[in-house]
């Protein structure tokens, strides 16, 4: 494959290599101006937009424009034909157009904010206008650029270390991007950051970077996984012991972990479970009732690891009870029964207060005052200092959840690529045919359902300690709906997708009051838009993408091509495993 395609880039460089045109120079000038503007003051008012008033010291938002400018310059260099092997991979014209639009949109928004909040454009400094002119020049220059034909990224192989370097760089960007985003207290700045992020991601996607990266990622799965784990692990170290952000990060992680468990049920086995949060709740209640809280009414206080196992088993038994009658009939019934189960769970814990039933849950008051976990001599409530960086209570839980998340991801990926995973795909594709080929359809569905419950129960036991108190209103239908929304948004059956979906759904309301107030409306609209334009989710699994586009021949061909390529050269790490 490599040999057959290598002539393509060569011919391309011979023919291409356009002399830098006036447009090229115009765009370059724009990009340089944009970068330069970041080193000037944009605004007299220091309180606005995280202080853009200092010369020669770019504030947070100005830094974003430096990044846009630098990326634009990178694409311009590509366009001048200086890096032939990359030039054929990336469509610089489309990327530059998107970057220019981003820069222009961003600058205009900043000007608007200054005009409205400073208030008045009189408060703007020359830097702002330099930036606007730069962005305008970029738009003018790039608008007429013609795209060059691209080669299929699958046919291009760069040296392994380059590809791995790309992954590492990408992961580093993710790490600092996440740290930056979380660090923004100001809603307006956060919004502008989202504009920047959306624009740059679009630009890189249009430039073909992501299709290239996805090919690389498929080639180096192991590296990608380790990289992602490393980023997640390093994140608390970027926070300097700030509990505010770590609390959000831990919430996000718990939510994402639960969604990953649900993704086994929904994404792999194809079962619609609308009461998943109840399994999390079951685990949390078990944990709370067996904790040293003054309101825990079970006398037995086993070590935490035993509690985890009990919580998981109780959850999965509930799963078996719900699943075994309903999974024999068609899918819709399961959705209805799980919906009802979620309600039954809420009503039950509301009533097990000693008046109506055994005294276990304290009814609506829940079980407060759950002490922090203590595993060995490690207390999760204490702050520990590692390498001079203090890691507080939330960071401790964050690390613990990270372990659980990694465990669930391992279960997920291993099951997915096993005999059982093949059975699940067969059931999703054609249940009757699967049955006729000897697949135990009922058993596999029940296993997914109860297994998903098991993992949720496990996560729940930790969540109880992290939350300090467990109340019925934490485990309502709405939460199940959000979990499902995270999966649909991110991509069913895809680990990365669910992580993205869960992060978006949990982070936005935390950071933006506006989203928090109207989150049902906004998420509803978001889902409708997704269903219309990208039903397979933001980061879909290949198989799901295929399933959602049953008549898209090109997509099938492309995915098959990637598949063939990967199959032809097995990953050395995979071969060893």
């Amino acid at each position: 494959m490599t040999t057959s395609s290598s002539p393509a880039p060569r011919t391309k460089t011979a023919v291409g290599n356009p002399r830098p045109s006036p447009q090229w120079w115009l765009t370059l000038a724009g990009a340089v101006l944009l970068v330069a503007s970041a080193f000037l003051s944009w605004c007299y008012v220091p309180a606005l937009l995280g202080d853009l008033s200092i010369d020669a010291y770019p504030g947070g938002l100005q830094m974003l424009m430096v990044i846009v400018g630098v990326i634009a310059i990178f694409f311009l260099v590509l366009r001048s034909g200086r890096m032939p092997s990359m030039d054929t991979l990336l469509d610089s014209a489309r990327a530059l157009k998107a970057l220019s639009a981003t820069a222009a949109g961003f600058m205009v928004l900043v000007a608007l904010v200054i005009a409205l909040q400073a208030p008045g454009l009189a408060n703007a400094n020359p830097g702002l206008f330099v930036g606007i002119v730069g962005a305008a020049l970029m738009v003018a220059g790039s608008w007429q650029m013609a795209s060059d034909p691209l080669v299929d990224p699958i046919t291009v192989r760069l040296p392994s270390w380059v590809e791995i370097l790309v992954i590492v760089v990408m992961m580093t960007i993710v790490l600092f991007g996440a740290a930056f985003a979380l660090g923004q207290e100001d809603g307006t700045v956060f919004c502008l950051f989202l504009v920047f992020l959306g624009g740059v991601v679009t630009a890189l996607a249009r430039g073909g970077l992501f299709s290239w990266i996805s090919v690389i990622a498929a080639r180096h799965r192991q590296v990608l996984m380790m990289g992602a784990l490393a980023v997640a692990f390093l994140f608390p170290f970027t926070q300097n012991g700030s509990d505010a952000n770590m609390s959000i990060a831990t919430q996000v992680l718990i939510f994402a972990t639960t969604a990953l468990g649900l993704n086994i049920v929904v994404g792999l086995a194809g079962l619609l479970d609308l009461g998943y949060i109840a399994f999390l709740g079951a685990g949390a209640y078990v944990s709370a009732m067996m904790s040293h809280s003054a309101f825990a009414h079970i006398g037995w206080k086993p070590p935490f690891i035993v509690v985890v196992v009990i919580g998981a088993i109780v959850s999965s038994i509930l799963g078996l009870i719900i699943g075994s009658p309903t999974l024999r009939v068609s899918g819709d019934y399961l959705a209805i029964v799980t919906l009802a189960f979620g309600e039954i769970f809420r009503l039950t814990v509301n009533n097990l207060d000693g008046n109506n039933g055994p005294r276990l849950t304290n009814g609506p008051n829940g079980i407060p005052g759950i002490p922090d976990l203590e595993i060995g001599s490690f207390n999760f409530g204490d702050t520990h200092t590692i390498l001079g960086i203090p890691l507080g209570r939330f960071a401790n839980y964050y690390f613990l959840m990270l372990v659980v998340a990694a465990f669930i991801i391992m279960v997920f990926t291993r099951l997915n690529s096993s005999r059982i995973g093949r059975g699940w795909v067969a059931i999703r594709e054609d249940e009757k045919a699967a049955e006729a080929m000897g697949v135990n359809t009922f058993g596999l569905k029940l296993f997914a359902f109860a297994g998903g419950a098991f993992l949720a129960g496990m996560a729940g036991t930790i969540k109880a300690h992290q939350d300090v108190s467990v109340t019925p209103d934490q485990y309502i239908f709405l939460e199940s709906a959000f979990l499902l929304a995270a999966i649909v948004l991110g991509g069913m059956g895809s680990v990365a997708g669910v992580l993205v979906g869960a992060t978006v759904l949990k982070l936005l309301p935390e950071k933006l009051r506006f989203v928090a107030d109207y989150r049902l409306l906004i998420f509803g609209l978001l889902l409708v838009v997704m269903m219309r334009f990208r039903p397979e989710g933001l980061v879909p699994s290949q198989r799901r993408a295929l399933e959602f586009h049953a008549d898209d021949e090109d997509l099938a061909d492309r995915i098959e091509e990637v598949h063939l390529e990967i199959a032809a050269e097995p990953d050395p790490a995979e071969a060893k495993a």
Partner: protein
Amino acid sequence: MSTQTLQPTAPAPRTFGAPVLEASGVVMRFGGLTAVNDVNLTVREGEIMGLIGPNGAGKTTFFNCLTGMYKPTEGEVKFLGTVLPPKPRSVVKAGMARTFQNIRLFGNMTALENVMVGRYCRTNAMALTSIIRGPKYRREEAESRRIAQEWLDFVGLGHTSEHLARNLPYGDQRRLEIARALATDPRLILLDEPTAGMNPKETEQAKDLIFRIRDKGLAVVVIEHDMRFIFSLCDRVHCLVRGETLIEGSPQEVQSDHRVIEAYIGQPDEDEEEMVAEAHAQDEAAPSTPAATDGRMKEDRA
């Protein structure tokens, strides 16, 4: 193998082993409609049995009764001497596999994965083993992969193992379905119109394939509308009309029976009459000559 293809209708008198499948008095009613009425069928080891009949005769329904997709209203199906529970999974496990008239592959899986699904009932890695992935699991997984690849090679699709099933040409999809069924290690394989939609060359290959399957010691039941195909392939032919058995016998007996011809002519389509006569004449006159025309007796359905 190739010699068999050359002289398909003049097989040496073959002797068959013990009965594999014994269906007796099978009745299948859908409300007021009796789709299968009191059908008896015995298939022996190493035998190729043809099942013919006009559209709507109940052939597919009969297959569904045999494989546990339907529970017959009356009658019993014995496989290797025991009555099977009407559950597709137990039927497969007992050693009876099938293909479908309208191809039912797992389109978004690769060809190899499709065949590996066929290995499902012969492997037993459960959840914990799949997660821990010890040496036993890896051995079993490698084994299913190897066997699946062997069956793909057997049906002539070895080179397509990593292709998505839905991207394969129609004829290959039919062969892939056969490979998937074979991967379940069956003693009896039921093929529902295995050459529908194939061109004459592919049909010849399919015939060769079925002979090779038979030579592996399997019993085969084939539903087909292509009379030349059926009469040159089968050891015995069973003809259903309106759910009832019309005749069962050797290909010679069946094709010379006037009721069979009438049953087909009785259909409203005009040129089918011609086709029946033509196919019939050809088979009588020069059974081993590869004819240029397609003796298909039914309109092609989607």
